[in-house]
């Protein structure tokens, strides 16, 4: 059962990879590089406070039942 699940997971990952690799060549960015001034502003950065944010996540985690998906998946304006 475990092996079947793993094989299915591997197939999904590979299929997803192929779909993404084949599809994104045609997609053009709808926000042009010269339109990203606002997105590049530090006030549009989820991780602006670095370890000060990490500390708050730790503080909440030790006092709440919930955990995970606190953020930090990164990303941003694609300004570079």
């Amino acid at each position, binding site marked *: 059962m475990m092996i079947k699940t793993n094989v299915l997971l591997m197939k999904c*990952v590979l299929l997803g*990879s192929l779909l993404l690799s084949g599809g994104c060549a045609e997609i053009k960015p709808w*926000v042009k590089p010269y339109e990203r001034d606002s*997105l590049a502003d530090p006030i549009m950065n989820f991780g602006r406070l670095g370890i*000060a944010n990490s500390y708050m996540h730790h503080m909440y985690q030790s006092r709440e039942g919930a955990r*995970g998906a606190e953020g930090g*998946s*990164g990303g941003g304006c694609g300004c570079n």
Partner: protein
Amino acid sequence: MQLASFFSLQLPAKARFFLLFSVSYLIGGWVTSVWMTGSWITGSWHSVAAVLPEQSIDLLYHRYDQDGQLIDGPAILIRKNLGNTVSVSGEYLVDTVSGASIDVIATASEYTEERTETSVGIDYLVGKSILSFAYVNSTENDFDAESIHLNVSQDLFGDLTTLTMGYSQAWDTIGRVNDDFEEEADRRHFRLGLSQVITKNMLVNLDVETITDEGFLNNAYRQVRFVSDSARGYDYQFERYPHTRTSNAFSLRSLYYLPYRASIKGEYRFFSDTWGIQANQFEIAYLHPLFEHWLMEFRYRHYSQSKADFYQDLFPFENAQNFLARDKELSTYKNQTFGFGIGYEFNSLLDGYIEKGSVNLLLDYIDFTYDDFRDVTREGFVAGQEPLYSFDAWVTRLFVRFEY
């Protein structure tokens, strides 16, 4: 410089594939290796260029002040780039605890006085992918935790999309002061994140994380109370939790740039686990620059959760059920946070050695209100009829960043 040159080498794609697969397999088994390698394949197909985090020195002083309990200490993080493709970082954090929480007052149990956390990390840039690895060690006199973290992030579609996949594994060793008690717990985290530019003024982040735990999952000191013939009407016995737990968390957060220079952040998070806890969290924040260098932030956060299936404030008798908990973090409750922050951003210090930086003071007021956790320190009440517990706390953070 030799180290920098070594990391700057562009390994052939097959070699990178093999390296990532092998490391992932050794650490987390082959589900993990497929997870991590698949994410890298997904990411690296259209590689052109991405960027590493800025070189910086981050300093933090944190202070949690609850009625009767104070936890404070410093933290430092240093990040340095080696060549154009590698960034290394090290972090050190100290929590010093003084005073006692209600659990300690009620059952006279002891808690650690200091926790130190050390972590080292490395980020490796490959085209538009960033592969990250980190090792974290946390030590107290009655608790040790080690963890490793693997992450892959990838920019896609003209850099408007960032896909992130991650895996962590943690090993905890739980002890008790003045006792030879020792137990272990293992944890595994699976993360998937998506960051998307929606418009030239709007960003959205989606995060999903599954965590599985196995081992000794309760606090080694905490006790539950049950009805007895004693003068106060109840006695205590140690908590007993299931030895496994799986949780899922989902979050959606967005930043929006207003027509003038200011931004609004909104966030929603949902959580559920196999212990029967469900939680909802909402947050909204407003950032407003002042003059040329100042920045103000206002924040409101609301969190609520339902209790674990095996939680009770007062059990009817000793060993009333297989699993027993009276940890207030597993009860039904809510909390609210009102936050305020002010920051000052500066440019060029020390003849340009520091390119820029900021000083930020952040103050948060949090109140916790419990629906089924009673304050046993209040005297003159029948067992189970004591007033419900509530408390508030102030959290202060002084955060300084130097980018060089």
